[in-house]
């Protein structure tokens, strides 16, 4: 619409007169000015997030009075777009879930844009200060080969969100899941960003992730993690199981260990402050995902207004935990061999007692935050011991 051709009725005297003449003399024709007033807010007042997201979906699972009518076109075979069969879990009201951070689109991208802007400034400062000169060159080989493997882990976990986004039958949930998937995509890309940046300041460091991919595909350190990620990605058809298996089991254990306890903790000991900085963003995304996962899976679904439904949900989530925990522990056990690949021992970090403490931190946190609220009993000491059978000391 060009300036020369567009007609703006708001400035046109004839339109203004006609509009004024057409307006009802009594003024506003209704006093209810709150969009979505019929929704039950989570807090005291309806938030903008709830107004802009709530009940956008046309699903038969919506609360009475908000959606009436059949799906007008279905999948081959007759299944509707969003069907209760998409998950084993049940709910009296899938719309009870609200993102703990109340993210609709604008606040979500605003945060991410700020992170991106700060990343740019950080990298410029890092390169200008020559900070890389204090990095142990042997450690850079670990960054290239081993740390780079996380690109593929995060990519696989990102891919695990597609079907969950598609099948989820409630809008608040769907939007939250899509953002969790986008964060995982971002996490994979941030590791590649780090790689490309290192290549720019140190051309011998490859931008090409080929070395890391080779390690991800062939090295025993990642073999079990890769297998688990493949199953998380493609072998889970239940959208809620997808979310729990990724955000309730694998990522809080394996993901948190490799990100926080291994790479972020060890890198600075070799002079590398860049890696923990990059990972700090992913760790933030982890906490965001954790809030929503814990709220949905350990609070809302287990306390459904229908007691039978609540009990059923707890049984199912526990069964999923039992299903995914062994492979997750196996993945972490195999990863323990990574310590032997480090350039040198680090006192208080890489010895068996310190590593045991690291593993115990992660598993204790997991038990407290995810397992205990469900009444899922776990012998943390036994799990730690099992993981540590994979530990190989630096020679």
């Amino acid at each position: 619409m060009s300036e020369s051709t567009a007609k703006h009725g708001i400035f046109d005297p004839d339109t203004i007169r006609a509009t004024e003449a057409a307006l009802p003399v009594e003024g506003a024709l209704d006093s209810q000015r709150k969009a979505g007033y019929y929704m039950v807010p989570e807090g005291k007042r309806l938030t903008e997030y709830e107004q802009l997201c709530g009940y956008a979906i046309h699903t038969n699972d919506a609360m009475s009075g908000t959606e009436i009518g059949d799906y007008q076109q279905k999948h081959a075979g007759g299944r509707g777009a969003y069907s209760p069969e998409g998950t084993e879990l049940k709910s009296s009201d899938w719309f009870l879930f609200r993102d703990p951070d109340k993210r609709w689109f604008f606040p979500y991208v605003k945060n991410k844009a700020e992170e991106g802007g700060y990343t740019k400034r950080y990298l410029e400062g890092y390169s200008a200060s020559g900070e890389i000169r204090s990095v142990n060159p042997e450690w850079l080989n670990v960054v290239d080969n081993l740390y780079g493997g996380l690109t593929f882990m995060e990519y696989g976990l990102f891919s695990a969100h597609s079907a969950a986004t598609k099948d989820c039958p409630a809008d608040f949930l769907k939007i939250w899941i899509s953002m969790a998937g986008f964060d995982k995509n971002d996490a994979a890309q941030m590791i590649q960003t780090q790689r490309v940046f290192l290549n720019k300041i140190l051309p011998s460091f490859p931008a090409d992730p080929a070395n890391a991919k080779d390690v991800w595909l062939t090295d025993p350190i990642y073999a079990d993690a890769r297998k688990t990620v493949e199953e998380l990605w493609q072998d889970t058809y239940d959208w809620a199981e997808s979310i729990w298996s990724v955000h309730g089991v694998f990522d809080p254990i394996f993901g948190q260990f490799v990100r926080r306890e291994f790479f972020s903790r060890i890198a600075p000991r070799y002079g590398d402050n860049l890696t923990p900085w990059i990972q700090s963003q992913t760790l933030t995304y982890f906490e965001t995902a954790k809030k929503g996962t814990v709220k949905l899976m350990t609070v809302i679904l287990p306390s459904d207004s229908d007691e039978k439904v609540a009990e059923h949900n707890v049984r199912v989530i526990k069964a999923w935990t039992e299903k995914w925990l062994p492979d997750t522990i196996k993945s972490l056990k195999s990863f323990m061999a990574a310590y032997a690949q480090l350039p040198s021992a680090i006192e208080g970090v890489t010895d068996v007692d310190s590593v045991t403490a690291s593993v115990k931190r992660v598993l204790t946190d997991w038990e407290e935050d995810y397992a205990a609220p469900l009444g899922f009993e776990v012998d943390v000491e036994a799990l730690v011991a099992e993981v540590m059978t994979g530990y190989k000391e630096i020679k």
Partner: protein
Amino acid sequence: MSENIQKKGESQGLHDVMSASRVPTSTKPQEVHKWLQDFSWEFEKNKTKYGTKYDMAVDTKEQFKLTAKEYARMEAVKEERQYGTLLDGLDRLGVAKRVNPRWAEIAKAYSVFIECGEFNAISGSALLWDCAKSPEQKNGYLAQVIDEVRHTNQAAYVNAYYSKHGNDPAGHNAGRQVRSIGPAFRGVKRAFGDGFNAGDAVECSINLQLVAEACYTNPLIIAITEWAAANGDEITPTIFTSIQTDEMRHMANGFQTVVSIINDPEGSKYLNDDINNAFWSQSSYFVPLIGLIFEYYGENKIEAWYKTWDRWVYEDWAGIWLGRLGKFGVKTPTCLRDVKKIAVWGHHDMALLAYALWPMNHFGMTLPNEKDMAWFEENYPGWYDHYGVIYDEWRELGCEDPSSGFIPATWLLENGHVPYLDAVSAVPFCPSLAKAECTLSIVEHNGKKFAFSSPHSERLFLAEPERYEAQNWFEQFEGWEMSEVIRAGGGLRSDGKTLMAQPHLNGGDKMWTIDDIKKAGVVIPNPLGLHE
């Protein structure tokens, strides 16, 4: 088994960190994006969870090469501008109260209808994200998923803004709730909902990206801004032109979807059928609906809808856009000529039926006034003798006056005009009243009857009946008296008795209440029941 990491490192050599450059630098998104194709790997179970007859190529690239952070940066700037304009400039100018009341009324409908499409496109894009093998394509579809979250919020914002600042919040404040008792919404659900995410992934992409976005967002989201502005509405253009900036990437996604399947000879033999089917089922609903929105609610009119349709759909989309895909074997949809005919009279047919069932909406309707009628006759010769006479008769029977107890829906049946809903597109049609081409056929399947307005719809149904066996609006409310439907759907204003829907926009004591509807005693029939 590869060498261990230490040995790998030794064979790669040590990096001379002292030689590192101290020139300040960062990374450009394209420099990161170029490596995305390396992120995936082959493994036995790596196939989509949704059935598709197409094989999407693993090396397909995306046209817009955005990383997640660059995407966020770009979109955050757009959001700042858009909401800044709304909350600062437009608020201070009091624009919501300066919109022509008819236009403000239809904004209750088009915004919540478009929102349905945007929301279901989240799932449609996620379906494609799952089916794509190429990491770049997955990246592009994921960006679209998040875009559609944006568009859902934006469309909702139109209603929220009008609700807070406009002259009549009723309907803006409850569109998502009340829309579902309206017969019009069923077609929206199909064309702008289920068609995007219930089916073969590539077929859904064709519905969503190739037809709805590349073809119909131009008139629906761009042309509408011109009509809106002409009628004093600067809110819709502020939001909708911003929506459309993302649609460019979605059209590119659709283009690349075709590119990704074109080398699969088995799959690509279905492509033109899928395009034809998508174009028919979307167009048979959208074409009349968009024309109705523009011409019956725009007091200040821009141009005849069939001219807009010709320009955007016939020439631009079917000619230029599909022309670019011609090298991939894409052909013009065989139903194009039939759809072109709908563009002339289809919206007039729909407007008549919509007005007849006015109490079932969450927005008001008006009879065409003299100025409207003169314009219609000038642009559609013969309009008055077919439609104008009916509207005049309804006016005389008192359709605007609650004391008359007259609802035009009863006039239809009393005069032998039976309305049906097409089982595939959900478009309402009335063969005895239609001036657009319209042939009634009824098929019985699984003990139930289904009506079709065209052989195109019937063919689609017979190929895959289980996909279209749905309870239609008449069947759902058969036997209900109208006021019961309105109460069940929440269609009352905050006084608990005045309808959100009205047959005029004059306000005052001529507004219909739920008691007026109850007195009229209109019981919803099932037209297919007349064919026992």
